[in-house]
């Protein structure tokens, strides 16, 4: 049955369609996604599965480029193809089944060889937000990496063969604005409250108030007062493990009944919420990173300008901007609301100060100040800000004479790295012989598969092992020869799903992406990540 071309959603319908995911990355994350243009080089089952999980949430535009035709391995595993597509160009063949997943997304195809596109100039690639590559020639992949690296356009490798899958992120730098760290400690400032907070907390007289008020005092009050008492008895030090025990005892002594939930909360909070609030070293490092560089220009990514302003802020106040959110705690309405407002107001005050520094830098560079909401997010997420870097030569050296890092990693006996190498060797094998390893029907030579030797040969070339006794583990070669290049739908879907979410992390600048490579072994159900 031919696909029915549905109308695009109205804005209200879009809101409903995307409701469940907007609860994760917000309207601004959704907007970032809708403004993104993703290029997919190599239309494999795995890259199609990745694209599916980008189209469904509403990525703006997708371009599929592939010069190859649909073969029996493709129809065996690809949901977007049927028998009727054998022999057709792969990008063209999947187009209508892929694009009907979401009528709001613009999907286009290109049946040229991406090597030819590269040869004719760079402009084609510069318009994309992220570029996915899947089972393309290694030399061509390398050229794309080298082209996009200085432009800070990330390249995401996503492939699967048989029971194995792999993902690799490669970018010069990636700025994470909202890490949304699940384990972020609240920013309560008990070690050094700002004046309004200190005043408010000290205003409580826990001895004088009646029983009802006592059980409704927000836990931060007894927590703070017990901390202060201990510090006054101990040269204003911050408590260590023994000190915290003493503080818990102090809190226990002033509670009036065993069912005061707020006091339970206060005791539970002693361990995690009493700490010295310092600027995390990584944040300090990012700030210094900026200062190391030459002066900022209109082309400098905006986050570096923000870090410069942050550096000024830290110099002036010795702190990071206040996080406006506080954890929920049992309390009467009035006190909690008052408390929440105190932190929110302080955060706003810090944003205003930060803006002054930022404005100064923006003016001297000659660029407009960024969006108000962006600035507010930067400040409230200050403790989790992160810039991630990848080494362009992490796996392959720009100087082909130098060895790669892989043999070092292989020394640690990580089996799954052997699978990684098989992927690489198989690509070179296919480039040379125009067939998958394991498909040579005169394959036996003295009881050994000839293709096994060939795979070994390619892998040695890749690693340029100085130690000539280096061998790919036989088990992995054996499995790759058995697979003959076939993707398995469930493994492709698994790998594609993970890769799609990593891509969304890069586009939205929310949540922390992997650093930077992941290998999935479906046989052992292991997922390993490592830096390459």
């Amino acid at each position: 049955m031919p696909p029915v071309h549905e109308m695009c959603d109205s804005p209200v319908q879009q809101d409903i369609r995307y409701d469940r995911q907007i609860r994760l990355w917000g309207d601004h994350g959704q907007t970032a996604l809708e403004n993104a243009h993703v290029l997919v080089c190599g239309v494999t089952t795995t890259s199609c599965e990745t694209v599916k999980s980008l189209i469904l949430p509403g990525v703006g535009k997708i371009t599929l480029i592939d010069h190859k035709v649909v073969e029996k391995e493709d129809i065996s595993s690809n949901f977007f193809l049927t028998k009727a597509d054998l022999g057709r160009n792969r990008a063209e063949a999947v187009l209508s089944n892929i694009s009907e997943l979401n009528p709001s997304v613009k999907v286009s195809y290109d049946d040229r060889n991406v090597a030819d596109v590269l040869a004719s100039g760079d402009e084609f690639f510069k318009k994309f937000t992220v570029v996915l590559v899947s089972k393309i020639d290694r030399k061509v992949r390398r050229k794309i990496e080298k082209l996009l690296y200085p432009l800070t356009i990330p390249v995401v490798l996503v492939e699967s063969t048989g029971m194995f899958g792999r993902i690799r992120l490669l970018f010069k730098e990636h700025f994470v604005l909202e890490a949304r760290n699940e384990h972020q400690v609240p920013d309560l400032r008990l070690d050094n409250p700002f004046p309004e907070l200190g005043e408010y907390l000290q205003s409580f007289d826990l001895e004088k108030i009646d029983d009802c008020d006592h059980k409704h005092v927000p836990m931060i009050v007894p927590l703070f007062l017990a901390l202060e008492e201990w510090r006054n008895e101990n040269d204003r030090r911050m408590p260590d493990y023994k000190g915290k025990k003493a503080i818990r005892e102090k809190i226990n002594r002033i509670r009036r009944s065993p069912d005061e939930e707020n006091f339970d909360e206060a005791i539970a909070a002693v361990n995690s919420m009493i700490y010295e609030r310092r600027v995390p070293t990584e944040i300090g490092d990012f700030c210094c990173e900026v200062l190391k560089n030459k002066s900022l220009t209109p082309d400098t990514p905006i986050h570096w300008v923000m870090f410069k302003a942050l550096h000024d802020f830290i110099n002036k106040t010795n702190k990071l901007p206040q996080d406006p959110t506080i954890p929920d705690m049992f309390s009467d309405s009035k006190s909690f609301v008052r408390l929440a407002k105190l932190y929110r107001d302080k955060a706003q005050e810090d944003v205003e100060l930060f803006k002054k520094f930022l404005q100064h830098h923006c003016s001297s560079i000659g660029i407009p100040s960024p969006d108000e909401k962006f600035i507010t997010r930067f400040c409230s997420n200050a403790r989790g800000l992160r810039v991630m870097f990848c080494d362009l030569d992490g796996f392959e050296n720009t100087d082909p004479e130098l060895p790669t890092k892989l043999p070092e990693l292989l020394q640690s006996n990580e089996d799954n790295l052997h699978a990684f190498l098989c992927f690489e060797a198989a690509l070179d094998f296919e480039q040379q012989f125009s067939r998958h390893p394991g498909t040579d029907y005169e394959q036996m030579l003295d009881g050994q598969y000839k293709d096994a030797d060939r795979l070994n040969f390619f892998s040695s070339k890749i690693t340029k092992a100085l130690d000539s006794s280096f061998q790919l583990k036989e088990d992995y070669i054996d499995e790759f020869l058995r697979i003959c290049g076939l993707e398995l739908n469930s493994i492709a879907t698994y790998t594609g799903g993970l890769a799609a979410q990593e891509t969304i992390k890069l586009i939205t600048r929310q949540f922390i992406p992997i650093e930077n490579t992941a290998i999935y072994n479906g046989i052992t159900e292991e997922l390993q990540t490592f830096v390459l």
Partner: protein
Amino acid sequence: MEGHRFQALRAYLSKTSKLAKEDFEASEELLDLLQNEIRVLIVGAGGLGCEILKCMALSGFGKIDIIDMDTIDLSNLNRQFLFRQKDVGRGKADVAAEFIMGRVPEASVTPHFCRIEEKDSDFYRQFQIVILGLDSVQARRWINAKMFSLLIHDDDGNILPQSIRPIIDGGTEGFRGHCRLICPTMTACLECNLDLFPPQVNFPLCTIASVPRLPEHCIEWSRIIAWEEEDPFQGEPVDGDNFSHITWLTEKARERAEEFNIDASGIDFRKTQGVIKRIIPAVASTNSVIASQCVTEAFKLATYSFDNMDNYSMLNQNAGIYQFVYPAERKEDCVVCGKKRRVIEVGKEKTLGDLIAKLKDENELSGPALTANIENSEKVLFMDNIQGTHENLSRTLEELSLGNQEIQVTDKAYAAPVTIQLRFTGES
């Protein structure tokens, strides 16, 4: 066999390798087994179900049943990819089956647009593997108990292998998920570690009624209290999918927030609906990952090609990607799969009502009925709809002669009754 979609898959299954299971029997016929002989049931045709069905069909499985009682909603379309705008309102199982059979005619998919409880044991007996893509603990427990009730013991007390039907259970929430393998008699079952499921979010009534602090409290207040008092829609109960209902509740919640000086800027339609319906955020990608993992394990079971994972995998993609497999342990006295009888110790002076409260609390039951075999006759101790049994609630367990008795407990949570052993404290 030229021209068959799964030609390449057939070739793969006809070879073995050093990484395959030791006793894997590679064969040209393995694909035929998947296509024609193995019957699989997929429970749920939502975010996980659609993906499980698609992966199963593309993995060579040819005889699939899928069951789901829900209809399609617009908010499903960001991840339930077998459905389109034009399908909104139709049964999920029906549309999913139609779509897959259209795209993958090699698979025969039989839909069941109904509740799982409406199917009898003969229905469930047809399947060799059951895969769960559910979003409710209750449904999971029911299926778990049902599949365990199908186990057949021989005269020596051993279980007949052909009555063992593995369950693969998947679950997702945001960027987190799990996939676990339940092999009756071998691994933990779903009832063994109920505490793995996060508890339902509920706010204390006194907070909602008198000391709200958060927007959520204001929203719950409007649902529980304002709705009761003002009856804005002529006796209709709150419907989380009704646009006017949610709009009314949002307005009331904002008023309440303003009254208590709570920041109302975050109280919008989406926030309100999220609280009222206890909405769990969901994306396509996490569903793909968990669903496909379930299918990979099913594929291994059906083809015997690789060892299955042992036995519980957890995924968290919030920061980096973290996946971890660990062996969930069987509980010896699990009421569903335990080898030992669950013993409940309680004072003989306690009433039947006390016992029921204890059972409810410890086993997360909603409304258990109890029967016992006393002096060779089956006695109904308590069943809510039998008026005569209500007086037993205030009688003591000693009065009811229940010392050392086996008691059968029936509850919505269990597909089949479970038996516990009662023991009076202080007595052996």
